[in-house]
């Protein structure tokens, strides 16, 4: 029994009417990477929260290294050697790395001794696991990938032997994700046990030794990763056969609908994030912009959709010039530009609004939804119900608060709003970030349908797979510039090198 790090027996948890975990059994062998996979809402996060002491199970037992243990709060979990890296980081943004790592483990009222010790320990951990971070950097100034590293360091600093990572790659670029996986391999080699929660099948296949699949609160299967396949896992997750490959015919590009010329955009700190970028999108084609996050894609999208002022450059929408130095998203909407923003939770939706209210965000001035200065509530609700039916938004309740929809259904609310306007140009950022497998299939189909209906689609995604399967042309962005255009069937390695800023990617890939 000694090689079992974690054993859960009959874990059961209800939240009111929701049976989040049903009689869950799980055994995780010491020194392995164990994946837990399932759609959003399958109960993965609840299970991990029980293991980490955020919630108490209604029923069931937890054994750590063969010892039965009652984890009544996270301190007990930490004491038992469990560390957790949350999906949304628990860091103090304006503290340094060192201060964050020490937080809660200061050891005495006077910090001097603790700081020295922490600094040494941090240096040791960095060397041991390839976890380089400047201990004096301020958290908010670090890229997301490094912030996550700090979370890992925090757990290790507290002596974690078992590390739980909850959707760790949701915010990472492919590059950062690869680095994370290397770190995880090293941790495994040092004998640590890792529980990786995700809904991305590829990651499971790439790094785990074993994988358990959850569906609707139940543990439906555990497999040895080497003996299973992406298809089998997807089917176990969703409970039906899933089409992983996007089927689409050849594009029939028409007129140029969106034309961008020498666009330069600065971020709020005054740094040039988009540098002299030019490209065109034609009706009936999908142009994908690939790139590691933070290379100017967000600023480009915001400038083109009128949310951010550009410094210089020209943009034409359907042949008509756009004033890029003014912010006028409403004007652009009226001219036929629809925008599915990258950050749906903060930009695309107001989470406290109900579904019907979010269905008019940005279009509330439309006479269709209003009588003079008043909103036409009946028309809005009716319209919302139509969208719910057409986009299979679940639960089908236009008065439900948006925060209570799953990620996939939230994204469908945004897509329904933007696509049903019948726009000429559709700009989509990260269409499937934080979206479950079943919904991804649906969203991809819709995007292709928009293209086939003759819309010009500009797609930005940090998921290279997504770009390659959806786009008709791929532009690669690096350091604010478009460094190359490739066909979507170009090798992953070549595109990856371009994304990393290697100029002669073609040669290097040979």
């Amino acid at each position, binding site marked *: 029994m000694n090689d079992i790090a974690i054993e859960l027996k009959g874990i059961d948890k209800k939240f009111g009417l*929701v049976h989040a975990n049903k009689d869950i059994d799980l055994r995780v062998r010491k020194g392995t990477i164990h994946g837990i996979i399932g759609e959003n809402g399958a109960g993965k996060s609840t299970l991990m929260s029980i293991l980490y002491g955020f919630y108490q199970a209604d029923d069931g037992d937890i054994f750590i290294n063969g010892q039965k243990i009652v984890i009544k709060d996270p301190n007990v979990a930490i004491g038992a050697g469990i560390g957790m890296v949350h999906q949304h980081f628990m860091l103090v943004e304006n503290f340094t790395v060192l201060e964050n790592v020490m937080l809660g483990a200061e050891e005495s009222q006077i910090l001097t001794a603790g700081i020295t010790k922490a600094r040494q320990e941090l240096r040791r951990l960095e060397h041991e696991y390839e976890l380089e971070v400047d201990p004096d950097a301020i958290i908010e100034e670090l890229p997301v990938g490094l912030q996550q590293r700090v979370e890992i360091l925090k757990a290790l600093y507290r002596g974690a032997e078992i590390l739980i990572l909850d959707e760790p790659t949701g915010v990472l670029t492919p590059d950062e994700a690869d680095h994370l996986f290397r770190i995880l391999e090293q941790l495994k080699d040092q004998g640590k046990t890792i529980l990786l929660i995700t809904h991305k099948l590829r990651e499971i296949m790439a790094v785990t030794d074993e994988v358990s699949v959850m569906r609707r609160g139940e543990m439906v299967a555990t497999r040895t990763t080497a003996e299973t396949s992406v298809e089998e896992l997807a089917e176990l997750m969703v409970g039906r056969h899933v089409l992983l490959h996007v089927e689409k015919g050849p594009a029939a590009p028409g007129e140029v609908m969106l034309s961008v010329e020498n666009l330069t955009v600065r971020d709020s700190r005054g740094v040039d994030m988009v540098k002299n970028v030019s490209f065109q999108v034609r009706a009936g084609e999908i142009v994908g912009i690939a790139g590691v996050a933070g290379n100017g894609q967000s600023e480009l999208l915001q400038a083109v959709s009128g949310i951010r002022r550009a410094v210089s450059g020209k943009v034409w929408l359907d042949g008509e010039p756009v004033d890029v130095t003014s912010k006028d998203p409403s004007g652009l909407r009226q001219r036929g530009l629809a925008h599915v923003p990258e950050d749906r939770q903060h930009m695309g*939706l107001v989470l*406290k609004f109900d579904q019907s209210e979010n269905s008019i965000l940005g279009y509330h001035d439309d006479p269709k939804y209003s009588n003079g200065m008043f909103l036409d509530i009946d028309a809005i609700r009716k319209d919302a119900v139509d969208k719910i039916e057409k986009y299979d938004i679940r639960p089908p309740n236009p008065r439900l608060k948006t925060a209570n929809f799953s990620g996939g259904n939230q994204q469908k609310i945004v897509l329904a709003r933007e696509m049903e306007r019948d726009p000429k140009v559709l700009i989509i950022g990260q269409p499937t970030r934080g979206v479950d497998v079943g919904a991804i299939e649906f969203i991809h189909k819709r995007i292709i349908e928009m293209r086939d209906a003759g819309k010009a689609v500009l797609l930005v995604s940090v998921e290279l797979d997504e770009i390659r399967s959806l786009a008709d042309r791929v532009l690669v962005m690096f350091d604010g510039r478009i460094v190359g255009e490739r066909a979507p069937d170009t090798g992953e390695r070549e595109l990856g090198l371009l994304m990393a800023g290697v100029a002669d990617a073609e040669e290097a890939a040979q």
Partner: protein
Amino acid sequence: MSAPYAKLPAWVDYGLIPLINLTVAFAVAGLVVLAVGESPVRAAGLMIQGAFGYGEGIGFTLYYATNFIFTGLAVAVAFHCGLFNIGGEGQAYVAGLGVALPCLWLDQFAPWYLVFLAAIVGSALAGAAWALIPGWLQAKRGSHVVITTIMFNFIASSLMVYVLVDVLKPAGSMAPQTRAFAESGQLPRLDWMFSWAGVDMGGAPFNLSFLLALVMACVVWAVIWRTKLGYEIRTMGHSPSAARYAGIRESRIIIITMMMSGALAGMMALNPIMGDQHRMQLDFVGGAGFVGIAVALMGRSHPVGIVPAAILFGMLYQGGAEISFEMPQISRDMITIIQGLVILFAGALENMFRPAITTFFATMGTARAGKTLPAGE
């Protein structure tokens, strides 16, 4: 997994939880009364009797409640835009000018309803103008409204002392107040409402501005939940970045919301000036601007909650006065402590009992449903 607990039924959320909070507040207040050697039961009896036991008491309770409805609505409107308008006190104070000046000017020849109309417009404009500057500073310069509105309370206070002492005080008078208004500068009292119920209102100054307060409560509801402007205000309040995405002009909405909030606070001045004293006196607001914050918190920024919360605070004011009259041990300051406790439990500690109650109802729900649903989408 962000909201693991099931939603509470509305009657629990808006009825039971505030009731429990109130009960605890009064229980603790009872301990305070006990500590000074008086009987809490008798004090409670006196309070209820004083506030609701006889016509004049009810009249006073509703008179105070009128003030709090206006100021509570003012705070609530700003809340919906994510702004914390602490300046209701100063906005109402300056708005006194918007009431007093039309009265002083028109009361000699115009009928009361014309004077009232002019005073409504005047108070709203003056209150809005006083909120405009903090609103503009927030929108264009990012100066936090909490700071600027607090400072504007002080400025208003000094300004009004100057105006009353040096400008509006009749020559030869010792009191810092305007002359008394003629009859058409006085609002009709609502005796008829009491006569219907067969109660005598006595000398209570309960007047027409109460009905105006109720009308404004309806107007606020309609504006916030039924107009495009209200939609934009709420979008701003919940998520400024979503507002930017939607093309809502941030500074415009901030300024408009602050002016609406100031106008509502300003209308409060009608009640004491035209409805009660029939002249403008020093410090006529008397803290109603701050009570409005508590009323808005307790009423969940919704008119349907604000009106009863305002009546509750009216009761505390009126019943509290009665207690301190009957029980010499309990001073006015003690009443302030009790009000503070209500604010503490109903506002600040709003979420203290919520988790336990939620768990309780969740379990009840499970038991009643007999079986549980799968953890679906």
